């Protein structure tokens, strides 16, 4: 070692980033951990909705990892406009669903580089494993991410370091390359063994990621919003409100100009109440039922259809007629409708 080194750790709190953190810390390197808030984290959304179905509240794994290893942690909120613009126009394209993982990594690592410079740190490191993910962790994409983020030579992947070219901190002797690893591929057996060796017993089970963008159902809603805006002659873009609504409720596309979102639980109903501005609020009268929002410019027929769907998901679904209140700014109207019974029609409209 030539001088004390300092590093920025990008951690999710999953097994790989926890191990990377432990490997670097055990070389006596001072570490500051960062965790990115994107708005698309499934765990955060579960918490926003009051926890899991079994009543438990998922813990924040990044905080847990930092606490266990006694590393200072900072949240970096990237959930605003530039991040959303990147999601809509990814330079390197999408994965299987709405996940532009390469662009997302470049975006985050560019921010990590800024933090590295501001903190006077020597390098950034991650828990990435060569070949573990089909798109963002191939050898060529790891190189692209490093180059495009401006971290060339300053991005260490401790779990796969011996399979990759030496980084600047390794060449300068700030990091002992011999104490880094050569893990590759999708198997987690070596990571599990390393966890036992390092005394790390508390970590989440690998569950295929924590990002809504990789979810097929979420991706349908994501692209539906973009396609509908484009079809209506609007700019293809996302706004922060979309992020919450995309993970909330049943979505029905009434037309390119109108969409219905129906709450599925009391917590979702309460969440939708916070997003009424600029939308119509629709709810059955006299019988219990969900809160629903309609966005866009529905025709008269689409208003009736939306009301029938809302009536169908309430306690009055088997009644011949249900009164539904349509509230839009100061305008309040009541429609008497038959609850929609045509399941095939519902499925055709469902996003």
């Amino acid at each position, binding site marked *: 070692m030539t001088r004390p080194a300092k590093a920025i750790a990008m951690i999710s709190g999953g097994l790989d980033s926890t191990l990377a953190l432990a490997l670097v810390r055990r070389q006596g390197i001072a570490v500051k951990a960062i965790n990115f*808030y994107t708005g698309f984290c499934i765990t955060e959304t579960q918490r926003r909705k009051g926890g899991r179905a079994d009543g438990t509240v998922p813990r924040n794994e990044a905080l847990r990892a930092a*606490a266990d290893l006694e590393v200072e942690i*900072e949240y970096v909120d990237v959930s605003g406009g530039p991040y959303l613009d990147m999601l809509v126009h990814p330079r390197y394209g999408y994965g299987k669903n709405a996940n532009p993982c390469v662009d997302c990594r470049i975006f985050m690592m560019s921010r990590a580089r800024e933090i590295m410079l501001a903190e006077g740190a020597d390098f950034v490191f991650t828990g990435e494993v060569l070949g573990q993910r089909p798109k963002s962790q191939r050898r060529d994409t790891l190189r692209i991410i490093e180059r495009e983020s401006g971290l060339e030579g300053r991005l260490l992947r401790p779990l796969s370091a011996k399979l990759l070219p030496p980084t600047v901190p390794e060449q300068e002797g700030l990091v002992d390359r011999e104490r880094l690893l050569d893990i590759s591929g999708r198997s987690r057996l070596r990571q599990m063994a390393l966890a036992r060796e390092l005394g790390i017993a508390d970590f989440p089970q690998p569950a295929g990621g924590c990002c809504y963008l990789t979810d097929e159902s979420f991706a349908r809603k994501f692209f539906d919003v973009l396609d509908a805006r484009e079809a209506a002659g609007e700019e293809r873009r996302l706004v922060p409100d979309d992020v919450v609504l995309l993970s909330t409720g049943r979505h029905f596309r009434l037309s390119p100009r109108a969409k219905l979102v129906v709450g599925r639980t009391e917590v979702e109903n309460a969440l939708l109440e916070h997003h009424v501005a600029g939308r119509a609020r629709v709810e059955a009268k006299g019988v219990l039922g969900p809160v629903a929002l309609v966005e866009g410019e529905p025709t008269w027929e689409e208003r009736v259809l939306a009301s029938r769907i809302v009536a169908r998901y309430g306690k009055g679904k088997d009644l011949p007629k249900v009164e539904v209140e349509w509230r839009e700014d100061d305008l309040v109207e009541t429609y008497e409708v038959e609850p929609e019974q045509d399941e095939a029609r519902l499925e055709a409209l469902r996003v």
Partner: protein
Amino acid sequence: MTATTDMPAPARTIDTSGRLCPYPIVETAKAIRTMDDGAVLLVVATDPGIALDMPMWCRATRNEHLGTFREGGAWKSFVRKRGRGGRP
């Protein structure tokens, strides 16, 4: 049994009601930076996750978690700022 009435008087209180994970912790981190060592911060939150997050954040940052208490639909979390001496 420890209760909010047993807690020291806070030098500063922040109300994060209505804000969701991770904002209560983000706001806690910002607030604690402005305070003197030994001073107590009271964080009011409606995100139930604070009961898990605050003790972990205090362990990670070596501040002292004095207690988190539920009061109706809100949680009150008391944190004493500690210096960073001893951090490697």
